[in-house]
Structures are given as structure tokens and as C-alpha cells.
């Protein structure tokens, strides 16, 4: 996944700090995925399930939804990280 990294790890950081950073990053990713899946599912899939497969309209909708979500997420992340004071 070619996502923009919010903050690269600076040199001279201890193992525990790196581990906790990785843990935070992982939690962030999991939260992002869950929210993404939930938002796009609520938006795109009709609640009256008529068949098990995703039909073509739903596929298109999900493609567009995920693409927009990811792009906005990247932009917001960049803006947030650009506004931070230098570490």
C-alpha cells in the first residue's frame, strides 16, 4: 500500500520507543481499515441482501469510495504532519 508515512522514525531512538511507535501505527492502520470498510459498506451496499455476490454497481461504488477515502486520508495526514513542530 503506497500510503504516505506520517512521521519517519528519527535516528537514535530506543527499541522500546520504536516498538510502541510500531504498535501505535498498527492500531492506527487497523482503525483506518475498519472505518473504511464500514463507511463504504454503509454507503454502497443495499441493505436488502438479494444475493451473496457483490454486483457491478456495488463494485464500482466501493472502488470509488475506497479511492476517495484513501486520498482524503493521505491529504489529512500530510496536513497534520506538516503542521507539527519539528521533532
Amino acid at each position: 500500500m503506497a500510503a504516505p508515512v506520517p512521521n519517519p522514525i528519527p535516528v537514535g531512538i530506543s527499541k522500546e520507543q520504536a516498538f510502541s511507535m510500531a504498535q501505535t501505527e498498527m492500531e492506527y492502520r487497523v482503525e483506518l481499515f475498519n472505518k473504511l470498510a464500514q463507511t463504504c459498506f454503509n454507503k454502497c451496499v443495499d441493505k436488502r441482501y438479494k444475493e451473496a455476490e457483490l454486483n457491478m454497481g456495488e463494485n464500482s461504488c466501493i472502488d470509488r469510495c475506497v479511492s476517495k477515502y484513501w486520498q482524503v486520508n493521505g491529504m489529512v495526514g500530510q496536513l497534520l504532519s506538516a503542521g507539527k513542530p519539528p521533532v
Partner: protein
Amino acid sequence: MADSSAEPTGASSGSVGSDENATQIQPIRMPTTEEIRAQDVWNNCGVRAVTSGVMGGGLGLMMGLFLGALDNPIMHDTMTARQQFVFTAKQMGQRSWNSCKTFAIMGLVFSAAECCIEQRRAKHDTINTAFAGCVTGGSMSARGGPKAACIGCAGFATFSVLIEKFFDRHT
């Protein structure tokens, strides 16, 4: 994300009690790579259109053979049995080939139109079917002028919506 399983509770096969009589709940499976590729192939508008065209052609062939065999005049006086057979076979072939072409084009245009409209709208409705039917009917009756095209559009749209409702009546 090819399966729509964003429900909060995952189903497990060890569910409590009363499912012995009802359908056994299967655990949630992620689709395999082959399934995803197959879905991608089937979601392509060109593939769908060609498949529908071929199926429509086959249907037209069968129908043309059947109907062509039914209403051919049999002239006992002027031709021998073998000549009658040859003549009937040629008529049947001609009729079924024409019918095959008509149905193939109909299936191709309808399927391509419905696929394109649905991909653009990103919604699954009967409006897609109605518009695709209108395009098909209009394009096939376009030779008779604009009025014939309008009538063909309306007629085929109604027909395709009715057929779709008929096939989805149990859901």
C-alpha cells in the same frame, strides 16, 4: 474487500443449539485469488456483452430452426421428397441465421448498455435495465425513423423491466 462481510459479529460454525434443523451457518471465507480474478473477468463490460451476444445468438438459432421448420409451405406436386427436404433445409437455415443475428445483436447491445450504465451510476436498480432496454429497442428500430425508434425504445424498456421483475420475484 470483495465480500460484503462488514457485520460486527462473525459467524462461526459452532453456533448454539437450534441450527441443526435450520441451515448450518458457515464460517466467513475470504475469497481466493482465483475467485477475485473470475469476478474481475465477469465485471468487464466487453466480456459480458460478448457472452450475452453469443447466448442470444444460440437462442436465435434454436428459435429460427424451430419456427422455420414449422411454417414452410410443402408443395407435394412440384417437387420430389428429396427436393422438398433440401428446400426446407435451406429455408430453415436462412431463417435461423437471420434470427440468430437479430438476437445476437439484441443481446450484445442490451448487455453492453446495461453494464456501462450500471458502472457509471455505481448503483444496482431497475432504472439500469429500463435505460438499457430503451437503448436496445431504439437502436434496433432506428431504421424506421424517429417515431419508430421512440416506440421501440418504450416497448423494449417495458419488456425488459417486466422480464427482470419476473425473474427476481422470489427475492
